[in-house]
């Protein structure tokens, strides 16, 4: 069965189906993180005291992770741009760098968690740490999900470049939209949790 509008834009939406689909999915993700952010705001304004993030968390490590994730967003968009310029080798390089950045982000996050656990800070310790672990943990799961998709598109999924290059380019664009969204969430998580 031929799946319609994988390459060409659908006349009524103006975009190919996967792009419409990923934006609808991202809309649901906005509501998911929005609900958790709202919970955080409510808990914080309702608490008699609330620690400053910079007193409890490691700001330099989180700053490093912010830089890593921003870099990964650039390498991701560059991998798509490379395909648009018909340069498959550069695509492979930039996609590999994106996956590597994701891996480094998770390793740094792992160090951060390990340090917190060693200091006796768990989600059950306080509302602050419950919020911290919930938000960063869910974000971390999103990074892992994105890395799995990116690894597929770098490895076995990249065979499609030979048979249907435009459809493959669209797949990379859609994966990129998701990856940039994960970066965007971190851009708000970082100051909210670590700097305030």
């Amino acid at each position, binding site marked *: 069965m031929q799946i319609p509008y994988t390459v060409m*834009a659908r006349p009524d*939406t*103006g*975009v*190919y189906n996967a*792009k*419409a689909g990923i*934006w*609808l999915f991202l*809309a649901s993700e*906005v*509501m998911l993180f*929005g*609900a958790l*952010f*709202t*919970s955080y*705001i*409510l808990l914080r*304004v*309702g608490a008699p005291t609330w620690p400053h993030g*910079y007193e409890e968390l490691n*700001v330099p490590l989180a*700053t490093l992770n*912010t*830089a890593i994730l*921003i*870099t990964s*967003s*650039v390498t*991701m*968009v*560059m991998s798509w*741009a490379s395909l*648009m*310029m*018909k340069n498959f080798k550069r695509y492979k390089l930039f996609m590999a760098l994106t996956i590597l950045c994701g891996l480094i982000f998770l390793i740094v996050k792992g160090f951060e968690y390990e340090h917190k656990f060693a200091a006796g800070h768990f989600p059950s310790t306080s509302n602050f740490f419950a919020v911290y672990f919930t938000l960063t943990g869910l974000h971390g799961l999103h990074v892992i999900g994105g890395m799995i998709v990116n690894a597929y598109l770098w490895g076995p999924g990249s065979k499609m470049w030979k048979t249907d290059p*435009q459809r493959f380019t*669209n797949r990379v*664009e859609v994966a*990129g*939209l998701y990856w*940039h*969204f994960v*970066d*965007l969430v971190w*851009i*708000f998580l*970082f*100051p*909210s949790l*670590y*700097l*305030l």
Partner: protein
Amino acid sequence: METANVEDIKKHVRVYITVFAALMALTMITVAVSYLHLKIVAAVTVAIFIATVKGSLVASYFMHLISEKKMIYATLILTAIFLAALMALPLFAHSDIITYHHVP
């Protein structure tokens, strides 16, 4: 974006590099400001303002929202309305003195 040619993409790449530099600079600024230990209202305002600028750059250029189709904008406007309602409802409940202080 699906119809962009190679020359267009080369121009885009230059924009991506500029946006990358801006995002890094804004990250450094937001961290530097946090070390000033401003009062909470000022600190939240500055931090969220910078985060919004950074988020707008990512959404506009990396996610190509600066030149997208109407369907995508319509989806996002609807999402923004629902997000605003989602955030407003519990905050209204919190600021309602009668219900907030009488919940057992």
